[in-house]
């Protein structure tokens, strides 16, 4: 496709979505009509931009459009990665139960690395301080009961790198 033709072709579909993703890396514009502003930058209609966001939400490419609080800044200084060794046949149900707790932000089943790493369920636990996190972890241990073969909690002691890249997945 010649460049002249490419510029003449209106952005739509995946090309439009890709450009919107690039333009919103730093977030949605904090202006009265953010979708109109994005539309103006791309030379498309605001309806097309809003339709693209709705389509991306429907497909799960956009998990949600929202504000993300910085729990550390809000005073939750204790953030522990709790890790659990749960029998494979019980781990799904355990994950659902743990993931539903208020103090847990993310909960994942991950592979073990035997013999060094026996844990297959990871849950990020947030509290005001380490003591609060330890209390929450003890409460989780109680909920999981006999399904827990062993568990541990790892606290971060230093941020070594934090890039601008953001996603709800991390």
């Amino acid at each position, binding site marked *: 496709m010649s460049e002249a033709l490419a510029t003449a072709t209106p952005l739509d579909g995946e090309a439009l979505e890709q450009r919107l993703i690039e333009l919103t890396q730093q977030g949605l514009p904090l202006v*009265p009509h953010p979708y109109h502003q994005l539309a103006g930058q791309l030379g498309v209609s605001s309806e097309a931009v809003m339709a693209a966001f709705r389509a991306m939400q429907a497909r799960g490419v956009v998990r949600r459009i929202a504000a993300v609080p910085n729990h550390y800044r809000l005073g939750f200084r204790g953030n522990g990665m709790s890790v659990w060794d749960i029998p494979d046949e019980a781990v799904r149900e355990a*994950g659902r139960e743990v993931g539903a707790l208020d103090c847990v932000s993310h909960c*994942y089943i991950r592979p073990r690395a035997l013999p060094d790493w026996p844990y297959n369920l990871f849950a990020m636990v947030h509290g005001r301080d380490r003591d609060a996190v330890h209390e929450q972890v003890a409460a989780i241990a109680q909920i999981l009961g006999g399904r827990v073969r062993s568990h541990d909690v790892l606290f971060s002691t230093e941020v*070594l790198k934090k*890039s601008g890249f953001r996603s709800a997945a991390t």
Partner: protein
Amino acid sequence: MTAAMQELSALDRSIINRLQDGIPVCAAPYAELAAELGTDETTLLQRLRALKGAGYLSRIGPMYNVERMGGAFTLAALRVPEARFDEVAGIVNAFPEVAHNYRRDHAFNMWFVVAVADAEAMDSVLSRIKAATGLEVYNFPKQEEFYLRLKFDV
């Protein structure tokens, strides 16, 4: 309530609480949210800039799911001998694919997230980290996710 939360006004707290639930896709989303919160659009936008500037909000906008876009994430860990810690951190952080890296108080003392735009590139990145550090890279890709929106009531 934490001390940090007490520093916030009632309006700021209600903004943080409400906007965690979502920003609508419509012509004037902030005006719509402002009406719900009993304030006006100008004030809401001003408070959002201030809350983001002060770090109470780390992001305002769409949250993208990298996997649905053809990319991939993983969580990986290293057991780094204490004497080599800073050196290894420098090597790992130099990889542009390493998004976040944390020291944790455990024998597995370095935990980082690797993000690639093309899922097929993941193995190669992890191999290069292993080669560059001379350390076993433990790869813990998520197999299942129990993702519940974390809502901090502030």
